[in-house]
């Protein structure tokens, strides 16, 4: 049914299709603005289809290895090279495929939403081209198996993200936030590159599997690990390097913010990939319990600082940005518990469940946080203000938006039957077995989140119809469709969590934890 050539080259097409679409977007706009938008939508839909093909291949036949420039995709190690890979290799395991699905679904929903929400701006062709390039950056980061290639896509991600944050100049405020974001990202990128240089200087290889198989864990490797994790954690917006998040998330257009959440999670994926795959083989020489506890403490701090900073905010997008920091903490907590138990007997009983919870939360967070940012954008689109104190009574005129916001708010607070509950329950259960206090903290943070969103819901939708918002109508259909797509996924994943966990999340967690399989898929059975 699907041509053989597409299946064979699906990993390359996953990058090439949105890239080609982005190159053409500024040219195709000469045929009309509508044509350009249709083109961007088509490109994101095609990319989502390719991501689905890749995921299907990975789940059915195991990790895909795609060697760029070799005679055949699976020919990772040339016959005459003495067992070392020399080319750039995409290594797409279940975790990568999982992240690819998140990114492409989110990109499609955001693109649909932006068709209407950015309709009043100039330079829309640049906006859509940058959106596609941001998708390229995210997909490249999650699929690559090469350290330097990872850096290149990290830079595409950073630059496209920074440019998009500045899209609405807003008297210079957006530019200021973009400046901060761009500066921090560039500095982080240089730190990552230095660490890659350190690894290359010792092992003479850039392929992750190759470096992992040779890893000695010298002092230099320790420094490289610290640099990589610090730089990527900074980009993922975890405490204590979270200071850019509220500015960038708050001042970017809502559609961009919903996608920047995924961009941050690609950096989080980078942290996990580096800890588990690059350094996972040295269980003896590295104290995993300590590393796990560092991640756990960062996670708990993120959860707590995020939610306490969020409560007093009165700008709706800044408030949600702090909640994004807080939710990142849950992912770090879940995966941190998994790291702390790595190599012990408890790992297979509840350590893996904690990791699954953390990874499932990445997906859920991308969906409901994206939905929440999009609803906030819908309200700003109609009312022109993001100040909660000046809103009120919008429930009378924006019923669909109110429904979607309600779904997102209940999901983020972990109320059944929405998807946030499914992943948080997995985190609570397993973390309770590890350390009851951590589970209690996680629950308290959830309650605070609920309180904060009840307040927001009340401020925005309840109360009498305000005279200044008498003209307010429901937002245009494409925006509702974009939000509706995410809302359906939020509900669906909340109602059928077992199937999703068994089908997608558990393979991803197993793939992440199994370093030997990753190395063997590239280097062969050696």
């Amino acid at each position, binding site marked *: 049914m699907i041509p053989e050539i597409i299946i064979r080259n699906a990993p390359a097409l996953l990058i090439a299709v949105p890239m080609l679409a982005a190159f053409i977007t500024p040219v195709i706009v000469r045929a009309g603005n509508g044509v350009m938008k249709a083109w961007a939508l088509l490109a994101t839909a095609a990319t989502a289809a390719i991501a689905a093909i890749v995921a299907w291949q990975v789940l059915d036949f195991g990790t895909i290895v795609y060697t760029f420039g070799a005679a055949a995709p699976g020919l990772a190690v040339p016959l005459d090279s003495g067992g070392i890979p020399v*080319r750039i290799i995409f290594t797409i395991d279940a975790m990568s495929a999982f992240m690819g699905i998140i990114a492409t679904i989110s990109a499609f929903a955001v693109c649909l939403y932006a068709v209407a929400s950015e309709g009043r701006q100039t330079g829309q062709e*640049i906006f859509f081209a940058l959106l596609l390039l941001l998708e390229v950056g995210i997909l*490249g980061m999650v699929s690559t198996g090469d350290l330097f290639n990872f850096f290149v896509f990290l830079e595409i991600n950073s630059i496209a993200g920074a440019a998009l944050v500045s899209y609405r100049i807003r008297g210079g405020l957006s530019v200021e936030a973009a400046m901060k974001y761009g500066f921090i990202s560039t500095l982080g990128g240089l730190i990552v590159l230095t660490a890659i240089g350190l690894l290359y*200087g010792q092992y003479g*290889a850039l392929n992750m599997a190759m470096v992992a198989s040779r890893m000695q864990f010298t002092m230099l490797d320790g420094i490289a690990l610290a640099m990589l994790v610090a730089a990527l954690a900074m980009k993922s917006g975890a405490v204590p390097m979270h200071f850019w998040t509220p500015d960038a998330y708050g001042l970017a257009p809502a559609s961009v913010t919903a996608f920047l959440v995924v961009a941050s999670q690609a950096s989080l994926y980078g942290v996990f990939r580096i800890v588990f795959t690059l350094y996972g083989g040295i269980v003896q020489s590295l104290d995993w319990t300590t590393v796990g506890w560092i991640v756990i403490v960062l996670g708990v701090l993120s959860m707590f600082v995020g939610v306490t900073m969020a409560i007093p905010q009165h700008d709706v997008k800044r408030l949600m940005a702090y909640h994004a920091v807080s939710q990142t903490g849950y992912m770090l907590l879940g995966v941190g518990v998994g790291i702390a138990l790595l190599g012990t007997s408890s790992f297979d009983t509840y350590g893996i469940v904690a990791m699954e919870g953390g990874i499932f939360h990445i997906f859920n967070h991308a969906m409901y946080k994206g939905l929440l940012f999009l609803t906030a954008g819908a309200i700003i689109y109609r009312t022109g203000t993001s100040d909660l104190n000046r809103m009120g009574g919008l429930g009378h005129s924006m019923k669909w938006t109110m429904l979607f916001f309600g779904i997102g708010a209940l999901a983020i607070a972990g109320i059944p039957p929405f998807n946030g509950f499914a992943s948080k329950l997995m985190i609570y259960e397993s973390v309770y077995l590890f350390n009851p206090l951590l589970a209690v903290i996680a629950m308290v943070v959830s309650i605070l989140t609920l309180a904060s969103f009840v307040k927001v819901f009340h401020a925005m939708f309840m109360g009498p119809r305000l005279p200044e918002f008498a003209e307010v109508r429901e937002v245009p259909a494409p925006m509702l469709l974009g939000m509706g797509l995410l809302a359906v996924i939020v509900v669906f994943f909340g109602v059928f969590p077992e199937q999703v966990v068994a089908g997608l999340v558990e393979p991803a967690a197993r793939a992440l934890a199994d370093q030997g399989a990753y190395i063997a898929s590239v280097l062969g059975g050696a």
Partner: protein
Amino acid sequence: MRGIARALTVVILAGAFLYLAFALSFGAPAASEMDDYFIGHGQEQTGANNIVTAVVFDYRGFDTLGEATVLFTAVLGVGLLFRKFSTEEDE
């Protein structure tokens, strides 16, 4: 307070950098199989005398596509900042 923190950062970084500067040995790379492969086989496989170009456009050509994309992205970003604004927008 800020000044002290800054000075401390600089001192710590200076120590770390100097450690790094002496930890690696200049002029004698520890491992070089991949590069020896490029030098030994690059000419026959790609037909290019310049091995750096062979690496840039053949063995690691995908990186170069990414790099060209970065440049394209930056041009788009600069164009976005200096675009003409309609009167309707707040700028």
